[in-house]
């Protein structure tokens, strides 16, 4: 089986994006002080990335709402909530 990139994998899933209304917000000043940055490696859809300066950048589109980032965050660097009802990820197999 051909290996799929993470983008290809997420491309298999349906989303209804609440444009401009992220359900998760990171606090860059706090993330800057975080030595672990576990969110970057553990997020199953790679929504957390590091920019060239090593700052955490976050995109909420494509989020699976699994809650992992909220639990592994050691610095309380994010505000986490569910998206509006009916929005976000929509699994068809599950």
């Amino acid at each position: 089986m051909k290996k799929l990139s993470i983008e290809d994998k997420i491309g298999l899933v349906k989303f209804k994006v609440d444009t401009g209304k992220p359900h998760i917000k990171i606090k860059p000043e706090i993330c800057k002080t975080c030595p672990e940055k576990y969110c970057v490696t553990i997020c199953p859809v790679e929504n957390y990335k590091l920019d060239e300066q090593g700052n955490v950048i976050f995109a909420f589109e494509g989020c699976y709402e699994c809650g992992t980032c909220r639990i592994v965050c050691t610095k309380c660097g994010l505000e986490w909530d569910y998206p509006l009802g009916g929005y976000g990820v929509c699994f068809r197999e599950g």
Partner: protein
Amino acid sequence: MAEKVDVVVVGGGPAGIACAYTLAKAGVETIVFERGGYPGSKNVMGGILFTNALAKLIPDFREHAPVERPVTKRKFLAISEKDALGVETGFSDFSRPPHNNNFTVLRARFDQWFANQAEDAGAMILSETVVDDFIYDDNKKIIGVKTRRDDGDILCNCVVLADGVNSLLAKKAGLRSEFKPKDFVLGVKMVLGLPAEKICERFSLESKNDGAAYEFFGAVTNNILGSGFIYTNLESVSIGLGVALDGACKLGLRPYELLDKFMDHPYVRPLIKDSEPIEYSAHLLPEGGYHGMPHVFHDNVLVCGDAASFVNTSIYHEGSNLAMESGILAAKAVMQARGRGDFSAKSLMKYAEYLQESIVIKDLKKYERLPGFLHSSPHLFNNYLDLAIELAKDYFIVDELSKGERQKLMFKKAWGRVSVMQLIGDAYKSFRSFIWN
């Protein structure tokens, strides 16, 4: 003035729907709030549905429910980077109904069907509705919920929290402490399309009325706590793995990279060859066990399913049945409280008593030592699984060395890697954790 119903259930998964179904059947006015577009749209499991609790509610579910295949064959395999060593079961009784109450399912489909049954029984299911908080009276008692809708306040006598593994509401109600990584496993999974005949051929199954469940330990999780799986559906296979959050974070493991590696393992590759990727999903599992449970009742509120951490973290990995069972028991306790006209904690304590008498708490209690033991023994997979595979491989090598010489080398290898004291210690702790609490 906000509307009022008897019972609000938050979450349209197995626990919430089982609860709503039971209440609606008894004529209790019940509304289920589901945040997804439809029940199941946010839900993922491996997954095997253990149907012992479902059969109590809907004895003929097999004829109507979108279950995939009964699990008639199981394999448990230790894998290293390139090798595998396993045991297989093939109990012919399990090929006949009720199939040991094991069926593979795809949750987006199953949960929708289950919710429809509750709706037919008289429950109201309102999808696309997030419950954000509770409404309290002057005495700080819960008297309803705030939903994220216009005029979304609903008053009720009792709230049943079945809002899943990330139960923010259980925390808001003061029923649980902060979530800790050690109590959670992250699961990632691919559903891969394969024709039914190919599935039968590759997994040695006689027909679509037979199914396989393979569980993998060791290299699949980079030798940290967790496991991998392949389950056969009717025309697809579910392949995935779960890793302990704390271990994966510390090692900087990317879950989907582990999954890619697993899918490329020489033992796994031929099983999924030429399959069609259908869906990639991920979900958390509560793995805190007995000691990871929140308080499950208080004034006017009960917690069931994953929100209450009702997952048997041992090799059985039962969760769906414990969710449904707890939903049914929550409904029973609510009905009793309703009869008394008293939804205080004292009255709802009946729920905890029912749980204690049921397999939910009995099974969690039996394995109460397990999560602690596994977390405090990260060497287990590293030391024993790889060694077992290597020794088995050595045992079967055919070459110029005599069997006696070969086996002497094997002993030397084993004692070079594990000390007698450590082996005794681990064996004792394993015995206490898995067999005799």
